[in-house]
Structure formats: structure tokens, C-alpha cells
């Protein structure tokens, strides 16, 4: 989601209505300044940008609460709200037919979570959710199920009518109250280079600021210009599997999270289904041998290197005890709690356990504990030097698949950097955007509010922000706060029930 293609197009042909040096350097803009720059202004009370699932669920909640389409604009380069998410799940080996790591009741297309995905899927899954997680593993929905359901809801709430295509460049406070959100529309879509959206409320939902690679991976790529044999699992890397299909090979997989699980499954599925002889070496930096945690009241299960957890946080952060507890913390105490329940983990799935047990037994899946120290290409292969618990080790591999999912600093995102530099936004105890319990971006208030949800706000008083249900919880907090300011009615039992019935009947609203 970089602006660069659009920026490059525009660099060739100067057009009217562009940002001026004065605008870029000024924190608070007047209407006059925009008029002088020739940037047209569009008035709308509520603007959300990013346009992914975070924007979608927020708009869904507001529409269900009674906000008309004319009062909302979604500024986005995405064609559908799940486009970016689907790209990431697909490259990280979760195509539409595979299951996500998400709870049955976390439905971005349904604010009530009822009926849940499992109920919709059929009686076999009813039994699963009835017995989970005691006698069965957690039910999780197929990616395709989530996308098709969102598509239905998108049309039901007339979402496309609110979408304005383009890339948001910045948000600045407006003298006299409210904000200007600067949109760069696609080439040819508007007579001016920029359009300003003047609104009382702005919602920032730009998703992940970007991927960050571990230093050894970056070093290897810079030094040897090889992007084919050492890959990050969040990048397209189908060529690795294809190469293993053409000739037998050995792969080094690094990481202990769900992406490592999925990549291992793909490698072993290919072994099983295509009769390959792939050897897998799995490098854990932290090897989890068993249940771990500071006390008997907070002990997470683990075995064979992995920490096991159903979802990416302990479940009660999405509504229960941990949500309540985190809400009351701040500063170092909050950072400590994040650390306590954080840590890389993966869900327990029977097929994964079976595959890895078989691999260990038959000798084609081996575990090494340690860290990569150096990598260099040797002929067709990559030579990896690792510091391990058994001392320094050297090995050659056909490919290295790095499954560590580091996120870049929020400053890597141009709009977030601008908010930090010009609009009063600050950082929370873990370094992301500092939001309050109602997801207001603290420090930016200006006769209106800027809200933010999603990954960029991790570290706030609510931990599960970068999840389907977390985005919906944020949406509800935002809608309730907007209700306190008179923009919308708080969703009460009567309207909630009648709107749910409309959802059931797929009645357009």
C-alpha cells in the first residue's frame, strides 16, 4: 500500500491543486490556505481511511446504528475491504479453502457474532464448538467463508456508495475545529492532484505499517542481491515449493508462530501428496518444552518447541477478565502485562501435531535451538551459520523460509508519521499510536476527534486490536463515543434486535 506508483505518475505531470510547502510545514490549516493552494474541499462528518477490515467494521456498526451513507466517506486504495488481508493470508499459506485462526463468534460481517460461523457451517461444527476446547480443538472459519460473508454485508450496508478511491496523504487539524484529510485520487479521476475532506471526525485504520525483516535477512539480501532462496513467509514464495517439487531439497524454517506452522504444513503436505523427499530443519530461537508462565494462575501450555494458544491472545482479552484488567493499566505495568501474555505462539491442531510427530519419527523433521549468525550463497544453495545450544553449526539449504512476523515501526507509514509530527499524536508504552479506551488518538482533539484502530494501536488499554473481533470492539467503543457527542444513537436493545433481523433477511439498509 505504498503511495509510490501514484506519486511517480504525478511527478511526470504537474497538476493544479497540490500541496504547497506552506501547507506541509503548517500543523493547523485554515480554509483559506487550502483555497489558496487550489485544493477543493468536500464536507462530510465522518471520514475513515485505510479501507480495510478496520474501516469496514466501523462503518458497518455506524450504518446499523442509523448513520446515513451521506455522512460517511471511506478513503481507500483497496477495491474491497478484505483485499489486503486476503493477499497476506494467501501468501502466508492460507488460501480461501483453509481455516483462519479466528473464533467462531468473531464475524466482521455481523456485529452480534450470532449466528456464529460454526452455526452457519452445519451440525458437525455445532458439536465442535459445544465441546471446544476441552474435547475438541477450537473451531475456526475458512478464509473464504469470512470473505464471502463480508461481501454480502458490504452490499447490504451500501458500502461501495461511501468509498472514494485514492491514497490518503495526511490528516491535519483545521483552525476553527475539525480536520482536513488529504486524498490523492487516482490519475485522471479528479481535476486536481489532491482533494481535502473536511470532517469533524476521522478514523485511522491503515493496517500494518509494513513488514520488518530481521537484520541477518536484510544483510544477506543487501550483500548478495538474492531474494529467491532466502524468503520471508509473508512475501510470495511459491517458487520455493516449486523448486522442491523439481528436485529434492532441504529447507530451513525459522520461527515458532502460526505462519511457521502453516509453512511446515505446506512442506509436509507436498511431501505426502506429491511424494517429495523434502528434509526440514526447524530453527527455534526460544524452545518451549512445556507449560510456562509466572504462576499457576497464568500458565500457558507448550511442547516440542511451541507455545500453544487458541488465538493470538488469551481469549478473555476480547471481553472477559483480561480485557477488564488491561483497561485499568497504563505505562510500565501495561507493557509488563503485554509481555506476560505475549510471546510467539501457535494453536493446537491435530493434523499439525501428527505431521511433526511423524517427521521426528522418520527423521526428516529436525529441530535446532538457536539463532542465525550468517548466511551466504554457495552454488545453488545457502550456507547458514547458526549459534545453537549445541555450539556453532554450519548447514547448507536449498531455501531458508523466515517465518518471523516483525512489524515495522509506525513511523514507516507516511500518514502515521505525519500524525506524530504535526497533529499531536503520541506513542503508547509499546511504541505504537497512543489511544484511549474509546480509541481516540490521544493528543489530537480539535473540536472533533481522531480515532484509530487496528495494528497501529497495539499496546493500548485493549490488547486484541489486530483481530476481527478486536476491530469490532474498537468500532463499538468509537460508535459509543460518537453517540456521546450526538453523531449517532447508541445501539440499544430494540434497534439492535430489529437490525439483526434485517441482517438475517439480508435486507439492505
Amino acid at each position, binding site marked *: 500500500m505504498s503511495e509510490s506508483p501514484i506519486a511517480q505518475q504525478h511527478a511526470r505531470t504537474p497538476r493544479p491543486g497540490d500541496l504547497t510547502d506552506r501547507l506541509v510545514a503548517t500543523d493547523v490549516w485554515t480554509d483559506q490556505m487550502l483555497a489558496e493552494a487550489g485544493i477543493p474541499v468536500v464536507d462530510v462528518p465522518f471520514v475513515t481511511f485505510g479501507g480495510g477490515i478496520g474501516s469496514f467494521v466501523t462503518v458497518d456498526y455506524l450504518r446499523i446504528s442509523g448513520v446515513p451513507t451521506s455522512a460517511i466517506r471511506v478513503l481507500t486504495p483497496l477495491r474491497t475491504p478484505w483485499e489486503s488481508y486476503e493477499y497476506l493470508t494467501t501468501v502466508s499459506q492460507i488460501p480461501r479453502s483453509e481455516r483462519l485462526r479466528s473464533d467462531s463468534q468473531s464475524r466482521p460481517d455481523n456485529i452480534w457474532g450470532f449466528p456464529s460461523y460454526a452455526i452457519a457451517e452445519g451440525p458437525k461444527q455445532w458439536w465442535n464448538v459445544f465441546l471446544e476446547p476441552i474435547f475438541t480443538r477450537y473451531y475456526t472459519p475458512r478464509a473464504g467463508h469470512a470473505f464471502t460473508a463480508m461481501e454480502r454485508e458490504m452490499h447490504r450496508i451500501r458500502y461501495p456508495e461511501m468509498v472514494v478511491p485514492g491514497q490518503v496523504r495526511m490528516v491535519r487539524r483545521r483552525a476553527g475545529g475539525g480536520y482536513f484529510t488529504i486524498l490523492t485520487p487516482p490519475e485522471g479521476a479528479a481535476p486536481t492532484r489532491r482533494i481535502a475532506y473536511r470532517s469533524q471526525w476521522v478514523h485511522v485504520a491503515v493496517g500494518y505499517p509494513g513488514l520488518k525483516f530481521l537484520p541477518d535477512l536484510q544483510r544477506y539480501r543487501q550483500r548478495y542481491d538474492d531474494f529467491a532462496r532466502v524468503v520471508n513467509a509473508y512475501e510470495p514464495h511459491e517458487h520455493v515449493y516449486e523448486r522442491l517439487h523439481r528436485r529434492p531439497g532441504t529447507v530451513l524454517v525459522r520461527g515458532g508462530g502460526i505462519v511457521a506452522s502453516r509453512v511446515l504444513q505446506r512442506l509436509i503436505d507436498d511431501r505426502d501428496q506429491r511424494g517429495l523427499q523434502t528434509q526440514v530443519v526447524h530453527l527455534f530461537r526460544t524452545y518451549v518444552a512445556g507449560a510456562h508462565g509466572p504462576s499457576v494462575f*497464568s500458565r500457558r501450555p507448550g511442547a516440542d518447541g511451541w507455545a500453544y*494458544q487458541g488465538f493470538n491472545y*488469551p481469549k478473555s482479552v*476480547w471481553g472477559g477478565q483480561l480485557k477488564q484488567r488491561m483497561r485499568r493499566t497504563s505505562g510500565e505495568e501495561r507493557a509488563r502485562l503485554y509481555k506476560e501474555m505475549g510471546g510467539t505462539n501457535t494453536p493446537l491442531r491435530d493434523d499439525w501435531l501428527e505431521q511433526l510427530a511423524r517427521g521426528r519419527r522418520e527423521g526428516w523433521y529436525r529441530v535446532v535451538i538457536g539463532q542465525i549468525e550468517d548466511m551466504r550463497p554457495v552454488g545453488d544453495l545457502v550456507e547458514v551459520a547458526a549459534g545453537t545450544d549445541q555450539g556453532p553449526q554450519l548447514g547448507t539449504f536449498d531455501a531458508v523460509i523466515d517465518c518471523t512476523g516483525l512489524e515495522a515501526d509506525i513511523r514507516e507509514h507516511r500518514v502515521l508519521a505525519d500524525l506524530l509530527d504535526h497533529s499531536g499524536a503520541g506513542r503508547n508504552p509499546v511504541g505504537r499510536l497512543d489511544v484511549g479506551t474509546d480509541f481516540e488518538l490521544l493528543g489530537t482533539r480539535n473540536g472533533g476527534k481522531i480515532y484509530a484502530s487496528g495494528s497501529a494501536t497495539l499496546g493500548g488499554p485493549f490488547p486484541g486490536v489486530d483481530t476481527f473481533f478486536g476491530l469490532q470492539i474498537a468500532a463499538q467503543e468509537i460508535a459509543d463515543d460518537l453517540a456521546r457527542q450526538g453523531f449517532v444513537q447508541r445501539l440499544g436493545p*430494540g434497534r439492535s434486535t430489529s437490525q439483526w433481523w434485517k441482517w438475517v433477511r439480508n435486507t439492505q439498509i
Partner: protein
Amino acid sequence: MLPTLSGRIQTRIFLLVVVGGPWTLIITPVLPTGADVGASYGATFSVLLVTTVLGVLWELLWHGLQQFRWEKDWPTLFGLLTGIPEGLLVWFLFAGGVVPWSDGVAGAAFVLHFTTTWLLVWLVANGPMRVPFVHWRINGGRLVP
């Protein structure tokens, strides 16, 4: 479910009154109580009242057990199975004559009334409750913040 202690207690009282109450009203006349309708209502509503009051105490125990779970969740199955010890205790209290205003209840009628009420409350708590109360599940089962 992901209850907090206060959410457990609030949900318990709310559902036993709002769902259990009307259900008891409906089912009592057809229960094999062997008594007239007035006495039958007296018995079934006594059971409902005792289940609610004792339930608040049970919730303290369930909440305590929940602390041993890493996820601090309360699986759907647990919500159903806790009905067994709770039902047995209520039965023993009535059968043992501990409830001062009651002359006891008929066994078959008690089993039918208690299990159907428990099942209904459990079903409502695991889905339909979220329809009118869209804030309930993210507030740990609390209806009043």
C-alpha cells in the same frame, strides 16, 4: 464465554428471571407435581428462587476455578455441566426440608423443570443474548457497567 465475576452474577440473575421466569410460568401446569396449580407454582418458583440465590454463590466457585485457566475463559460445555452439581444441591435442599416455606417437590417434576430451564438459559446465553445486548459480550457478561 468470557465472563467476569460481576458479569457472571448479572447474567445469572437476569436470565433466570427473564427467561427462567416465563418458562416456569408456561411449564408448571403440565409438570407431574401431583398438586394443584397454585401449590405447583409455589414449588417451581421456589426452586427458581433458590437456584438464583445459590447460583450467586456458585458463581464465586466457578470464577475461582476459571482462574486456573490460562485463557480466563469459560467453555460452553462447562456452562451446561455446572447445572448438574447446582441442580443436585437444590434438590437436596428441598428434599431435606431445608427450605423453610416449602413442603418439598415431586422428583420427576423437579428434574423436568430444572433441566429444561437450565438448558433454555444456557442456550440463550450462548447466542441469542447477543442480539438485543450488543455490548454484553465485550463487557464480560455485564449488563450494568
